[in-house]
């Protein structure tokens, strides 16, 4: 192998296209699971790739390129949520007794309306933005709780609360749908 990845990415349009093709779907899904809608996920995916390719010179270890890109994607999505939803990831929500929807709709109606949607999307929609982000980073991305805390900029204890609440709500959701 001749040149390092950052240099190749800077100089070769072909290599850039290959790098994008190899990672596009993974990064899109990762961002989509955090922000919860396709249009925002599309914009943020593009933004994440542009940021990453413009800063490819900062990448020291080529073997960590995928992880590095994921990190940029997660941070881009989290910044977006902070900006637009005014979410404070360091506040812990009370765990409600009954399952509720973020829009305040009747859970039964929501469940019926979501019959044709994938259960995971409907389940994630039951969670608050903080819980969903923590659950996605911990259970889908497989990051340790300490790293999730670092990315969200809050304590491990707070992140544990988000994760626990998310798992409890998601389990209740599955039990109600009897999936």
């Amino acid at each position, binding site marked *: 192998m001749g040149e390092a990845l950052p240099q190749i990415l*800077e100089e070769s349009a072909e290599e*850039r*296209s290959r790098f*994008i*093709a190899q990672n*596009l*779907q*993974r990064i*899109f*899904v990762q961002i*989509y*699971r955090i922000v919860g809608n*396709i249009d925002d996920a*599309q914009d943020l*995916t*593009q*933004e994440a*790739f*542009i940021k990453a*390719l*413009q800063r490819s*010179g900062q990448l020291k270890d080529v073997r960590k390129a995928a992880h590095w890109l994921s990190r940029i994607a997660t941070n881009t999505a989290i910044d977006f949520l902070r900006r637009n939803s005014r979410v404070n990831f360091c506040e812990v929500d009370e*765990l409600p007794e009954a399952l509720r929807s973020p829009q305040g709709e009747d859970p039964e109606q929501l469940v019926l309306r979501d019959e044709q*949607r*994938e*259960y*995971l*999307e409907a*389940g994630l929609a039951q969670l608050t933005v903080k819980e969903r982000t923590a*659950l*996605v980073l*911990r*259970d*889908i991305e*497989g990051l340790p*709780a300490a790293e999730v805390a670092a990315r969200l900029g809050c304590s491990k204890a707070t992140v*544990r*609360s988000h*994760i*626990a*609440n998310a*798992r*409890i709500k*998601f*389990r209740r959701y*599955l039990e109600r749908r009897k999936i």
Partner: protein
Amino acid sequence: MRHPGQSELALAAGGDLPVWQRWRLHWHLRACKRCRAEVEAFRAVGRRVASEGAKLPGKLNWERLAAEMRANIRVGLEAGQCVSPARTRGRNLGWRIAAALACVTLVIVSGWLFHFTGFRLRTADSLTPAVAATTEGIEVQDANGSLVLRHRSEEPVLLSVTTDGSMAASYFDDETGMVTINNVYVY
């Protein structure tokens, strides 16, 4: 028997409890079938989330969306290069470093010339006369020799120089008890 809360069990399923809490729960789970089942239920949820979470959302035309994103990324990168070209910036940096080094070298060489080679703007063998301040007084120099107007005081002397070549020395005269000002003009 006192059972742990749902939050604790949910965290235990993912291995997210702190060490001491994990250890305490471990002993409880050994004895409590019900809590073991709860933890296993949470584990099953975690597995489903992990396996389904990496899939694309339903009813999505991925090929069209991916093509659109690839095109937008390419346009974004090209626009970024126009606004802030990283390569040009790199080249400019080289020029700036070279210019800064040249300036520093010039200052060092000039300092060395003035301080260590005895180079003076006005020397004794200059054709035009010049004035200079010495420890004794104001000295007038030309090609033929020099003349010193001495200060008559041990007190500190205030010296001033003008651009037309004159020099003035002000000091407190011990003998007269007055301030004396000596002006020396050179034409």
